[in-house]
């Protein structure tokens, strides 16, 4: 079933022949049809032939994949049935999309909305309902052209971004007029572009020979994913991925374009609405993350946060409303939580407008906070275990984690006077950046765990607005989870004390959320000096400050939390006892002993859950590279998210808030 495309024998096409080709367009489109129903297969084949397309048929998904792999550039478009005995059509769709990046059309006798939606979310460029009519097949060429066009744009963009583009752009302009000499057939114009992409890649590699287009096989893709995960999604730049993958013959451009596709893919996946449960679980996790040592947050939290971040709008808003409701009388600033994405912006506005206000409402909040913090405590250990499993598979988790973290942060932030005199963003960068900061700036405290989280989600919120300057080079490039930056003020302005306005230009959506919270804490900390000498979060303190304001409460723990992470020195003395035991962190140098029990409790909560994993990770992660830390932390955080905990926690939280407000 090999397509009869005569490759290579094409003369170098001149402009003239390309014109000829265009006239015949879209004839000669090379279509691969996969369907286990022989009747339908035959009919569709005949119809396609009538449209003057070149047709290859397969009745099994595996043979289709084999054909595609054997003939990398041999097809322009794939039409696949949804229900097949050996492989689900959607799975085939994903594989083809990732490996070969061809447009895929799904077809089925099933016209249910859900199935069609599934096709959309899995990236099908069209969905045909059987019986197929020839009119529907006549126009499938548009998908090929559209895709090529988009890819071309993408390539140009990525090239210009990564290479500074002039050279490439110039070359790309020549595409239309140069000869590809690669393909026979009538698809020269559009195909040539694609081929030229390869050529350009090759040229960029300064290879004189024309390399075959890179085949992103499943193994290669897995290597790629492993490398990306290791680096952290927001830190995963093509160069580093390439180094990690260590695949001979693979170019940075190959990796770059694949990375883009992967991010889009992840973003697409994460864009699917999350259920409440998942969010709940992650939410809880995030809460812990919020108050737990930063280190725990960074790696694992990011993921968890990502997961948690995808709190449903309603729940978030409810929570926010609840949490913020109370402070409003005190702070006078109700915090409207719009949706996850707006967490950061919310944060921003809150800080901007609510300066000083946050600080005030301490009294009521502490109780609440304590309670709130207390809630997850019980849940965490279990969550950890559960989360561990669910963690790996959830790219969404990252997003949600971030979001939930941000949510948490927001809540916390409402209580914190943003004008602690410190830039919110001062410390560390979200996500992966945070890690960097940790090591880089001891005193800064980490706010961002975004990057690790974003690792899996292409668009993970973790992309924090890395304004943190040079430290976070790559972070800005990552799309946030979905929306504009949740990390408002987190754009780091450095550990300076000046008020850093929280601007919602943070790109990291979910991650941003987390960071703001942390930064708030930092700010609250009133670190006159970035003296994050607080090594360990004093988990042990049972300060009676439970009643202190949240702000107060949060400050200390926050700072300690930050400090903990920020201090790359091994001062973390996690007396991590066996699972569940509190990690008693010594808080040194924190100033607000008010760090209420809320913080303590939160920290405690976190420590309990983190106990073994978290503490230990924290301990050793300090010594590891940021990437390692992040990944470890992410893993840990992910364990915190479980659906049920989250829901329970939310309910409890709401109740508490309402109760307090009553």
């Amino acid at each position: 079933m090999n397509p009869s495309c005569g490759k290579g024998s094409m003369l170098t096409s001149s402009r003239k022949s390309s014109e000829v080709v265009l006239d015949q367009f879209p004839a000669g489109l090379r279509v691969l049809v996969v369907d286990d129903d022989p009747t339908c297969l035959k009919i569709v084949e005949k119809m396609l032939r009538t449209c003057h397309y070149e047709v290859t048929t397969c009745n099994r998904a595996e043979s289709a994949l084999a054909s595609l792999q054997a003939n990398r550039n041999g097809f322009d478009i794939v039409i696949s049935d949804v229900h097949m005995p050996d492989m689900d059509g959607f799975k085939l769709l994903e594989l083809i999309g990732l490996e070969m990046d061809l447009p895929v059309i799904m077809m089925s006798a099933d016209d249910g909305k859900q199935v069609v939606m599934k096709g959309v979310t899995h990236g099908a460029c069209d969905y045909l309902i059987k019986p197929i009519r020839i009119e529907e097949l006549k126009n499938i060429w548009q998908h090929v052209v559209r895709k090529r066009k988009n890819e071309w744009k993408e390539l140009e963009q990525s090239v210009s971004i990564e290479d500074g583009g002039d050279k490439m752009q110039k070359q790309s302009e020549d595409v239309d007029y140069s000869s590809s000499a690669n393909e026979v057939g009538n698809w020269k114009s559009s195909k040539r572009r694609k081929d030229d992409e390869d050529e350009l890649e090759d040229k960029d590699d300064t290879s004189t020979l024309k390399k075959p287009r890179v085949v992103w096989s499943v193994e290669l893709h897995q290597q790629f994913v492993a490398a990306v995960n290791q680096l952290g999604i927001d830190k995963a730049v093509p160069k580093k991925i390439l180094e990690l993958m260590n695949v001979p013959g693979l170019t940075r451009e190959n990796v770059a374009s694949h990375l883009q596709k992967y991010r889009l893919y992840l973003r697409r996946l994460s864009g699917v609405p999350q259920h409440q449960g998942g969010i709940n679980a992650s939410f809880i996790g995030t809460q812990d993350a919020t108050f737990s040592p930063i280190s725990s947050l960074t790696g694992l939290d990011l993921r968890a946060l990502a997961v948690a971040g995808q709190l449903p709008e309603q729940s978030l808003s409810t929570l926010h409303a609840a949490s913020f409701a109370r402070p409003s009388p005190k702070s006078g600033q109700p915090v409207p939580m719009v949706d996850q994405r707006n967490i950061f912006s919310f944060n921003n506005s809150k800080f901007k407008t609510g300066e000083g206000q946050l600080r005030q409402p301490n009294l009521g909040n502490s109780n609440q906070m304590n309670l709130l913090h207390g809630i997850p405590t019980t849940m965490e250990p279990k969550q950890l275990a559960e989360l561990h499993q669910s963690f790996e598979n959830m790219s969404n988790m990252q997003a949600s984690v971030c979001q939930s973290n941000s949510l948490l942060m927001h809540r916390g932030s409402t209580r914190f006077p943003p004008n602690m005199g410190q830039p919110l963003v001062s410390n560390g960068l979200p996500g992966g950046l945070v890690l960097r900061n940790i090591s880089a700036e001891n005193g800064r405290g980490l706010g961002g765990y975004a990057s690790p989280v974003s690792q899996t989600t292409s668009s993970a919120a973790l992309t924090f607005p890395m304004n943190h300057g040079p430290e976070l080079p790559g972070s800005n490039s990552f799309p946030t989870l979905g929306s504009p930056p949740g990390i408002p003020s987190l754009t780091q302005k450095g550990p300076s004390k000046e008020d850093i306005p929280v601007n919602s230009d943070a790109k990291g959506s979910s991650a941003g959320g987390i960071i703001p919270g942390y930064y708030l804490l930092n700010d609250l900390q009133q670190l006159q000096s970035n003296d994050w000498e607080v090594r360990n979060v004093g988990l042990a303190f049972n300060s009676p400050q439970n009643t202190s304001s949240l702000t107060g409460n949060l400050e200390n723990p926050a700072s300690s939390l930050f400090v903990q992470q920020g201090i790359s020195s091994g001062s973390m003395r996690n007396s991590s006892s066996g699972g569940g035991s509190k990690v008693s962190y010594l808080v040194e140098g924190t100033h607000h002993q008010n760090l209420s029990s809320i913080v303590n409790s939160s920290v405690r909560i976190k420590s309990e859950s983190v106990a073994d994993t978290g503490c230990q990770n924290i301990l050793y992660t300090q010594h590891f590279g940021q990437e390692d830390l992040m990944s470890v932390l992410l893993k840990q955080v992910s364990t915190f998210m479980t659906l049920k905990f989250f829901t329970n926690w939310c309910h409890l939280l709401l109740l508490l808030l309402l109760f307090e407000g009553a």
Partner: protein
Amino acid sequence: MELGLMQRRLEDYTKSLFMEGLLDAQFLQLQQLQDESNPGFVGEVVSLFFDDSEKLLNELTSAMDQQIVDFRKVDSYVHQFKGSSSSIGAQRIKNVCILFRNYIEEQNIEACLRCLQQVKQEYYHVKSKLETLFRLEQQVLAAGGSIPAIEVTSF
């Protein structure tokens, strides 16, 4: 029988199949795909359909015969039958399949068995009709005539 008469008979017969709802516009699509380069196209496709359907119906029957009916499997068979029958325009079969799937969803075994019977009936019915149709076509072709194009008015 003279050619003209045969052709008319063929035409009337074909039309009657559409009128009865046995076939729908999709069959016309198939006929339009048939041309000089591929004169036996419709016949080939329909033969393919028959072969595939026999197998499918056998499996469906045995699946429904089980002590514990695996509805998921039954559903996939019916879904497949729905797809292939709709592809050749066997409208009545398709409709029964749709009904069948509803009952599968309800896990109503009695109704499912009834549907199975019904779908078999419809299948054999359309099969015999199509076989007659092809026979008539062959006669016309053998007599040197061409198969008249069906005018699609409204079914």
